[in-house]
């Protein structure tokens, strides 16, 4: 099963580093030691790290997102592999990735957005087929978690929102 959180058979696992070129490895130095079950899944992990631009990604969530992406589109693993190969080969900068694929009308153009939607919003698929797999753990919530709570989560005691959040942030930084 192509699920990242199923860590049962370590002997058969692939080192992520082996799937990368020097260029992609330089984008995600923090992820190189990770192991994955298959090259396809590895491609997803590498793409996730490149697109999300975070130092670490929750492996349990990664497993859930990958599983859902494959369920939505059985062609996803292959497409992820091809996209990683393309980035490896052409050394495409993450910020240029979408534009390059769109300009070239590439058949892989939808792949980065799927990965971005999954990690940043916790949503996989579109329209009536869409599924939400993460909300407070989606990266867009995590990225601002020091200042904002995702809507429906209590901000704090009554009136706490009157405080200047930037002063609070600076205080935290000073306390570190």
């Amino acid at each position, binding site marked *: 099963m192509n699920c990242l959180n199923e860590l049962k058979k370590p002997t058969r696992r692939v080192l992520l580093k082996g799937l990368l070129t020097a260029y992609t490895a330089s984008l995600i130095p923090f992820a190189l030691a990770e192991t994955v079950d298959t090259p396809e899944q590895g491609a997803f992990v590498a793409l996730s790290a490149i*697109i999300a631009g975070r130092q670490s990604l929750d492996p349990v969530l990664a497993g859930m997102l990958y599983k859902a992406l494959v369920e939505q589109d059985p062609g996803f693993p292959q497409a992820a592999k091809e996209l990683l190969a393309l980035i490896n080969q052409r050394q495409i900068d993450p910020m240029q990735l979408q534009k390059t694929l769109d300009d070239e009308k590439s058949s892989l153009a939808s792949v980065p957005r799927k990965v971005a939607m999954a990690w940043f*919003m916790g949503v996989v698929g579109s329209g009536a087929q869409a599924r939400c797999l993460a909300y407070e753990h989606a990266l*867009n919530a995590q990225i601002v978690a020091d200042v*904002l*709570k995702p*809507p429906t989560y209590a*901000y704090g005691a*009554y009136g706490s929102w009157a405080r200047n*959040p930037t002063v609070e942030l600076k205080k935290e930084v000073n306390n570190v």
Partner: protein
Amino acid sequence: MSDQLSADIVIIGSGICGAMAATHLLKQGASVLILEAGGPIDRGRVVAAFRNSTRKSDWMSPYTCSDIAPHPIYKPTDNGYLVQGGPYPYPAEYIRGVGGTTWHWAAQAWRLVPGDMRIKTLYNLGVDWPMSYEELDPFYQQAEEIWGVSGAENTGSPRSQPFPMEPVTEPYAMRRIRERLAPAFPVVGNTTARNSRAYDGRPACCGNNSCQPICPIDAQYHGGIAIQTAVDAGAQLQVNAVVYRIEHDDKGHIVAVHYFDADKQSHRVTGKTFILAANGIESPKLLLMSASDKYPNGLANSSGMVGRNLMDHPSTSLTFDADEELWLGRGPQSPSSINTMRDGEFRSEHAPYRLDFTNISRVNSATDALITAGVYGAEFEKQLRHRAAFEMSLKDVLEVLPNPENRISLSDQKDKLGLPKPKVNYAIDEYTRKGAARSHKDFARIAEMMGGTNLRYSAEGSFANNQHITGTMSMGIDPKTSVCDSYGRTHDHDNLFICSTGVMPTSATMNSTLTAAALTLRTAQHILPNRIIATEQGRG
């Protein structure tokens, strides 16, 4: 199983208006039966559904659409329930379920300004209301005490009694906006039905910032609370009861209503007095559907005005990056506004407006925009934080004048029960467009004063809708030009009353529900059982 249900007062619709009327009448000793088309709504389930929603900015997404009593849905695809007749789209949003549409509202609880009720006299526009602001004041107060309303004193709406509670604490972002726009623009706290302290068994706001689509702790008043109060006071509530016909006798007196249950079994319900409270679109639809030989154009429609004069509040907006960190999304969603353009001589030239500042977290919309723009990698985090911190947005809330061509009518399409779907014709006239153009001068100045960059105006000529459905069953003195009198009593049927935003003859510049609630309490007081019911019995 026909004819088993009966009560002194039969109310169609369990929304905030129907429910508040029910409680008032129950306290006077009347028996009340409420027929509600939709099913129950559970707060906890809605909160969970929102967290699991794949469209966090679509506030309808956590609410279930009833099979037998659909409401308009636009995402992910239009369910085609509200048929658009043009020329301008009117994508109304409402909820058909126990408690109605205020389950997902911003709880803005505005009074009119006195000039709003006399625009014909003052500015030779639209129509005058058949009552004065002073007459409405005590009913506003009653409604505010039931809801738990607070806000600034200086919003342009006079009051003879204080608010029942202190204003809700101003979010930091709004404080900065207020400080920086003073004195050119006085930014004041909105009046809202949101608790600044525990009130009537409900807690103080804790800043979840999800007032729309759902307050997880009931810190704001809504129809779900109103209907629970009515049921606790003894109202009989029949859910999944889709009223499809109002029946009259040969004198035009209403004798019964008919509803379909979930199995499309028909039931007849009798009563002495009937209150139509099925919102500004479904109510006129029901009056039109109840046409008979005696009333071929529908009930209460001798004026031909049922469904006509549809109004709302169109909005244009400006979003920009301020030059300091504001971090919208801390505290309630709709805290502050500018109220200086609600009334004045200029009204003879262009629409008045309020300017409303949002405090809705930017995180979701910014994420959407960044993904659309293909911003990935470390840059995403940087830009998301920047937008979440610096972005702010304001909108105008514009008056629309009554125009009979803007209307709700019956389409030739049918819903699952075979009942006609409503059709809407709507246009936005020069008066409103000129008001928008005027407000854009304010937008520009405000952006300048906030050090704004990256200015993004809403698309030229494009208006968002605010879901304040008004005018479709207008009150007035003259039965030839209006549907009901100032008590909501239909001119054509002495025991049929309407409680709704739809009875408002003009739209003004404020969210309309508090005015509808005040009018509802005035209607309910007028119906006082010992008066109307005794009259009915006297008639035999």
